């Protein structure tokens, strides 16, 4: 074959296989996708602009600086009807963070207790754990929220006949009333002592790890740390003369004044969220513990470890590898599910922003996207923290 012929045949192959070349195909497909998406978004944007003009909807974020004109049931920062929509946003955000944090706290506790209870030798405890998980996992969350709010909390007695626990905690149809801890001058020292205790404990932990790595000697970090974290504030309290007093809620007229009030909406939502998410966390804990082969326990016993050490050094660290990624997604879904607040009127971000503010301003696009962005960011933060935690428990491969 002459040089020319060979070139010709190469060209022919190249011609034939232009569409069969995966690289060219990929380029064409992606170009088509880009065209399609471009057309789709062009349509949406032009339709939206036309619709908004036709309906007289304003756009832009100016509304954030105008007065909202409505009051909010529960606010963590000062707020009234003259406050701006921007402040409404912050109030809602804080309420969302509050209910999510409290929900995550209780869900974790319930979940871990129930997950471990599954492995109890006691038949009753094991059954209770199974019944709890299978009951509450299979009932829609919104139904549980309604159940606690409309069937349980609405059946509580009126303020005058409220249930009282030691004349300091009151529970009635208006909510839960707790005594408030009020600090007097000097209370700052106690808070400072607490944080100082945390810092010292962290330092001791580092020192103990280093010493154990070098000499093999162990140091009781947990008990010393607890003693320091609790002892230092106690000492500071005694020195400054107990600078705290409790403000008890008192019945005045038709309701209670003073102290801390937990509104029934918050109670119902927290209980429902923690009980519902607790079932999934219990399942995660169960799966985690089951994922540790029994041989690990046997091996630990055969080298003479104590039962408690086996739990804390062998089982838990390995179970955590399975549990933490699952916890991550459960926490995220709890935050997302906290939007159900809007069904019972707890003023979370969704209720005050997508609910009330959207109704009043009509600026659907800005408000819905701002809200979505917030949940996105909260979930990214949770994900980031849990991934950091996960990295600390993950399997370290041989180097």
């Amino acid at each position, binding site marked *: 074959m002459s040089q020319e012929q060979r070139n010709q045949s190469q060209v022919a192959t190249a011609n034939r296989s232009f569409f069969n070349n995966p690289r060219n195909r990929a380029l064409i497909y992606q170009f088509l*996708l880009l065209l399609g998406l471009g057309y789709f978004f062009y349509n949406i944007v032009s339709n939206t602009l036309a619709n908004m003009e036709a309906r007289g909807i304003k756009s832009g974020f100016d509304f954030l600086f105008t007065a909202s004109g409505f009051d909010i049931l529960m606010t963590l920062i000062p707020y009234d009807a003259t406050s701006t929509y921007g402040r409404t946003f912050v109030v809602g955000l804080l309420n969302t963070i509050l209910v999510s944090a409290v929900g995550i706290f209780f869900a974790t506790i319930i979940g871990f207790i129930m997950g471990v209870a599954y492995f109890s030798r006691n038949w009753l405890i094991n059954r209770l754990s199974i019944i709890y998980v299978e009951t509450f996992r299979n009932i829609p969350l919104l139904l549980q929220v309604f159940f606690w709010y409309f069937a349980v909390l609405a059946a509580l007695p009126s303020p005058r006949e409220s249930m009282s626990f030691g004349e300091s905690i009151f529970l009635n149809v208006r909510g839960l009333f707790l005594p408030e801890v009020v600090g007097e001058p000097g209370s700052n020292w106690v808070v400072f002592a607490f944080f100082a205790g945390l810092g010292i404990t962290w330092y001791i932990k580092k020192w103990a790890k280093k010493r154990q790595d070098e000499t093999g000697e162990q140091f009781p970090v947990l008990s010393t740390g607890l003693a320091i974290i609790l002892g230092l504030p106690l000492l500071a309290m005694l020195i400054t003369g107990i600078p705290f007093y409790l403000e008890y809620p008192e019945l005045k007229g038709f309701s209670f004044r003073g102290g801390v009030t937990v509104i029934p909406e918050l109670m119902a939502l927290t209980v429902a969220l923690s009980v519902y998410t607790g079932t999934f966390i219990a399942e995660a804990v169960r799966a985690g513990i089951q994922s540790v082969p029994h041989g690990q326990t046997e091996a630990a016993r055969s080298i003479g470890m104590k039962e408690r050490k086996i739990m804390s050094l062998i089982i838990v660290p390995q179970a955590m590898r399975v549990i933490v990624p699952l916890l991550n997604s459960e926490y995220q879904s709890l935050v997302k599910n906290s939007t159900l607040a809007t069904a019972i009127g707890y003023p979370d971000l969704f209720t005050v922003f997508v609910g009330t503010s959207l109704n009043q301003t009509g600026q659907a696009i800005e408000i*819905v996207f701002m809200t979505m962005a917030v949940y996105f960011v909260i979930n990214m933060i949770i994900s980031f923290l849990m991934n950091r935690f996960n990295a600390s428990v993950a399997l370290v491969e041989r180097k």
Partner: protein
Amino acid sequence: MKEFKPLPARPAPIQTAGPIGWIRNNLFPTPLNSLVTLLILAFLATIIPDLVSWLFIDADWEGETQAACTSEGACWVFVSAWMQQFLYGSYPTDEIWRINLAILVLGAVIAAPYLLPKDLRNKVGVPLFLAFPFVGAAFLDGRLFGLEFVSTDYWGGFTLNIFLASASIIIAFPLSFLWALGRRSDMPFTKSVCIVLIEFFRGVPVLALFFMGSVMLPLFFPEGTNVDKLLRVWIVLILFMSGYMAEVFRGGFAAIPQGQYEAADSLGLSYWQKTLLIILPQVIKVSMPNILATFIMLFKNTTFLLIIGIFEILSTTQTALSNSNWLGGHAAEGYLFVALVFWVCCFGMSLISANIERKLDTSHRS
């Protein structure tokens, strides 16, 4: 020679076998455990009699109106009087056979792959499956079939929850598979589009998506088009579901050994032949338990539609509770009924999923 006659075996010691042994081992193994057992038993003893008498013994079962509820216990008359609303919403009574028929067909479509001969399974079963949502919706609507027209405003009740959930997952199936394929493809642009889609629909609260469907989607359509509310909800549910299912499929892809791809390539199969004939069946098999779990989640989440004013079962319950003829505080009965209905469905599906998982489990761990 004396024959050896063994003595009859003595029964096991009463402390270790039989009911007493079981109780000792499982209820009172240690002092602390015994205390907990006694506490739990005492707790159960205080609540169970009251609960049983409220639920069954003192309850009112028969009657038509609230006046029939005279005793102390639960008023199940409330549930029976509203039963049709709970199940079918305000769908015209004469046309309810259409809903029942559609439910039966849904069951048949799900059962079809098991009943059809092997060579027809994919050719008939899959198109049936994919056509069901559209044909079913048209049938309930009635106009195309020459039946009486029933506007979607009248659709409701528990059957609506079932239809919305199944219609969404059926359409989400191919869509999410495409997204999952896109996510693992080598084409950078396609890949990033799929990642953004999946993460968006997974990361945003489903309520926000529903609001997007009810307040923002109308802005996206050309002026003057009026898209049915239920249709918008359906679109949102499909997209939401696809986001979650795509991640389930991604997990399934990860479980398929590389050798399967290589074997398909060496046979000279094209990309789509390889994906649809070799990989997809295995992916579905591996991810079946997770698909069911996702479906259970979607099914429970259909109650969230109450917030944007769709008359699914929970919303109907709320309406019934605030009805002026039934203002007797029947919240507990109503919610218990809805909870029972959901519980039976979801628990049943989770049993099926656990069963599949056990069948597929080929590990030698016990």
